[in-house]
């Protein structure tokens, strides 16, 4: 049963990822991205990381994808004629992307992965303890980064009074 659902979620994820980069309409791409991120969260549940799955849905789908949908307002309207897509460019991009995938797949399948340790402490208590004891500096720097990102975004997009 778990295998069947895993295969279904994998197929759905690959299909929506292809839709997220393939369609011409930018709104279809944004919604397909939301579906892909949901499927990635399900894969995280298969990998015993339930907290990360919840965080992925809250942060990615709930904030980032919605911000991207707001930014779709900048695109030209869909009833206008779309500019011409060069088929040579598409074939070139497919070749490069498949080259990347083939190299990675060969490396993954050839490696002799060491003995596997699946048993461990996946709980949130342990995660919180590690985050605030061992990686506390990274944690504090990360909150600074978020503050700087917000300030930088506001600074960049500010309306200047001296320009017309």
């Amino acid at each position, binding site marked *: 049963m778990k295998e069947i659902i895993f295969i279904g979620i994998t197929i759905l994820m690959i299909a929506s990822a292809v839709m997220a980069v393939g369609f011409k309409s930018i709104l279809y791409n944004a919604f397909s991205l939301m579906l892909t991120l949901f499927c990635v969260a399900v894969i995280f549940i298969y990998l015993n990381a339930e907290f990360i799955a919840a965080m992925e849905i809250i942060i990615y789908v709930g904030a980032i994808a919605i911000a991207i949908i707001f930014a779709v307002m900048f695109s030209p309207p869909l009833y206008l004629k779309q500019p011409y897509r060069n088929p040579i460019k598409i074939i070139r991009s497919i070749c490069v992307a498949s080259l990347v995938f083939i190299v990675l797949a060969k490396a993954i399948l050839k490696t002799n992965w060491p003995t596997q340790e699946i048993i461990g402490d996946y709980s949130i208590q*342990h995660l919180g303890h590690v985050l605030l004891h061992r990686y506390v500096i990274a944690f504090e720097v990360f909150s600074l980064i978020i503050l700087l990102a917000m300030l930088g975004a506001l600074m960049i997009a500010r309306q200047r009074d001296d320009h017309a």
Partner: protein
Amino acid sequence: MLEQIQTYLLLAALLLSIGVYGLLERRNLIGLLISIELILNGASINFIAVNKFLIADKAIGQVFTLFIIGLAAAEVTIALSIILLLYRRMNSINIEEADNLKQ
């Protein structure tokens, strides 16, 4: 198949290559942003898969992935404000029209 690490790593590699294809092919700036999000998600799946199968302390991979997710959020913020500024200048978000530095 679910107990092997190769399944999840191949899945992450597939997401990454689909994101690379989107990054190379799309002209719309929002399309590029979406492709970057796919690449980052591929890397996140990679981290969590290695965390389950190869690492003794099970919190380390999750910490890395939390940082990746948060940094993706910060990066989308800055990218969207740059897109806003570029739109004010060029009045379009087609990246092939942003060639002022070209000879």
